[in-house]
């Protein structure tokens, strides 16, 4: 080989190494991407300014009757039996926290079984449960604390199992309950078959607006429950995502396992603040931009606006109460 070739090979290797280090820098040390958004309301006029260093799709969803919670909590207790393995719950919660970071929302506070019992004296909070079973401190065949809390105005976000299908007995063992859903909704209402939905549900438009694409039906709620929003998919009479009004409160049920689609759909639901009562008021503006983009819209009354960038691949989000 010519010495020129020899030099070229060394230079080539050096260039490739530099390329890798640039990639590493972008991925870890100096992320060149920056995203931001701002909204300002004057009377009924809302002006928004969006900014992004990368070219992105944006979506602004405006609706009435969003959640108004004092805090969000997530239940996790290694000492208590659960349907989902603790390792799976832990991993899911860690990643859910990152989803909250992405959406500029305050991270949920992790609470154990005793903590959740203490919290259920306050109905102005939301609790996320991904263990697939409620802890014995708030739910059993004789204890209806969790049900009463929801009916009193609490917000329960549920994923990873069949709601109201089992409880943890005095020996710490999981015991099955008949007719899942009855204690919350008054009739058997939860799917126990492992299947997926492929037919868009009644409120799928809202699911599309918020890129909520979970399609698992195991643990999904029955369709046509009054006062329930169905933004996911359905099959055999059950829906993959359901936001149900229960008394003064709400239960949001995500069917399927603790997978990526459920994590994203759950994060979008909690961080946007949608409720079953948004139906009828929700509007959405979409588009794409790079650099900055501004616009305005007219609203009336108290509204929530939720901005996110990236379309299916969400890279940023932020909620505004206007």
């Amino acid at each position, binding site marked *: *080989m010519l010495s020129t*070739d*020899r030099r070229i*090979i*060394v230079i*080539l*290797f050096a260039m*490739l*190494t530099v*390329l*890798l*280090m*640039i*990639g*590493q*820098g*972008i*991925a*870890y*040390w100096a*992320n*060149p*991407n920056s995203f931001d958004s701002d909204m300002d309301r004057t009377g009924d006029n809302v002006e928004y300014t969006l900014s992004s*260093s*990368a*070219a*992105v*799709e944006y979506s602004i969803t405006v609706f009435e009757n969003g959640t108004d919670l004092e805090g969000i909590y997530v239940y996790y207790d290694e000492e208590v039996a659960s349907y989902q393995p603790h390792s799976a719950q832990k991993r899911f919660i860690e*990643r859910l926290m*990152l989803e909250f970071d*992405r959406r500029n929302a305050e991270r949920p506070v992790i609470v154990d079984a005793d903590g959740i019992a203490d919290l259920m004296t306050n109905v102005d909070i939301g609790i996320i449960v991904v263990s697939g079973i409620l802890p014995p401190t708030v739910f059993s065949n004789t204890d209806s604390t969790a049900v009463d809390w929801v009916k009193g105005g609490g917000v329960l976000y549920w994923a990873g199992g069949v709601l109201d299908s089992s409880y943890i007995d005095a020996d710490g063992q999981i015991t099955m309950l008949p007719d899942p859903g009855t204690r919350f909704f008054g009739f058997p209402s939860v799917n126990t078959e492992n299947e*997926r*939905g*492929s037919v*868009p549900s009644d409120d*799928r438009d809202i699911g599309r607006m918020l*890129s909520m*694409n979970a*399609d698992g039906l195991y643990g999904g709620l029955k369709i046509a429950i009054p006062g329930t929003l169905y933004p996911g*998919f359905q099959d055999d009479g059950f829906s993959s995502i359901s936001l149900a009004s229960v008394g003064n409160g709400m239960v949001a049920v995500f069917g399927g396992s603790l997978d*990526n689609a459920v994590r994203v759909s759950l994060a979008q639901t909690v961080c946007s603040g949608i409720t079953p009562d948004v139906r009828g008021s929700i509007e959405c503006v979409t588009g*794409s931009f*790079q650099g900055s983009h501004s616009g305005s819209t007219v609203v009336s009354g108290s509204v929530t606006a939720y901005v996110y960038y*990236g*379309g*299916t*691949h*969400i*890279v*940023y989000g932020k909620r505004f109460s206007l």
Partner: protein
Amino acid sequence: MEQGCTGDRFKERFVRSVRHPLLPVIMTGLMIRLILMPLLTYAYDISFWATTIQNIMSGDGLYDMPGYYYSPVWGYILGAVGFIGNVLLGITSMGGFFEELLPGIELFENCYTSTAIVTTIEFNILIKVPLILSDVLVAWMLYSLVKEKTGDERKAATGAALWFLCPIVIYMSSIHATFDTFSVLFTLLSVMLLRKEHYLLAGMSIATATFTKLFPAYLIVVLVAYTLARHRGDRNAIGKNIMKMAAGALIITLLIYAPMLLDGTFAESFFFITARVGGASVPTENEQDLFALLSSGGMRIVTLVQFVILPGICYLAYRMYTGGKDKTEEELDDRLLLLALVTTTFSLAWVPSPQYLLIIIPFLAYHIIAKDCRLIIPWVVMSVGAVLFAFSTSNFSLLLSLGAYTDIIELGTVIFLMESMHVPVFGMPFQQLLFIITGIIEGVGIWMIFLYIYLRRREHVVNG
């Protein structure tokens, strides 16, 4: 006067470049790739590259969020490519969710076509461009290697063509969008750097190749044996150069893995290996399904055969060292390249997914041109078999981006074609039947390499 001289020299250099025998090879290969890359894309794998870039954009690195399951090298390249695409080129959308694909998700679940996220055509092109550039660089290196060994530019260009126009190489960069070509690039670089006695850089390069796609790790033993043989009798030189290689490997390992060592995601970066080895020991729910069987039973076999492959490669390396006594530098180089071919082929003799075969191709191409032209037969059988094998897995999902984002074909038609691959033939889905047949063809191609090497060695013995 001086200007005229410079102009003449420029003209002369231009004419020489145009007449360069490598040019038609590169032009033909590029043309094929340029036609294929917007039209056909394996939707499944590339949807993960989009998720990886999404996670990087959000500041979550490679492993904090799910989506990237390989060692970091390709992830870093995606970081750079994503930046170019989203920030510099202004590519707005990486892909979208297509509800029409949901009904088929369960049908396609175990055969790597089950995705409802379809990437955009501009994103597909963005990802494929660096892969194609890597293909070009490998072609150039192969050209240089063959030219050096044979002194014949035409042969060197033919050697490069055997890589750059190889159907499976074209498929993997311009259709499948998988990154094995980078692993080949770093492997070939390490071999060339070692032959030129750049031990530190050779160590860095083989480590980078290994952290790109694991399989070049088998070659480390061969490279060490070559170094030992080359400096036989000179303990100082052996010690110094082996230390340099080890230091190079260590430096690049620390450089590549620094973020994972700091943020505690080091274990996650080996998910590619641990998931497969783990999958080998955990029986799947549905062992009746061919793909489930392959991911459990098949991986069990692959794990077990490592106990044959690793000692086998060590033995071959030992033979290289002992047999290298009194050999010239030229002869040692020949042995290195032969052993590289045997090692890469032997390590993949279990008939792997077709993209892994890319690492064999440069060494096979070199031997076809420089040593035994009959090896073209396994080259043809293996590469054509591998393309068909790859198609049996991805089949008509290759048209998803086209169906989702253009009017050339309806998305519904693509889904219908995908579903038609699951029509039962001889008691099993057609796709699985095709998978078996094409896998056998690929396997025959791989094993034929051994046959021809054996025949050549026998001829040598017979001819004295």
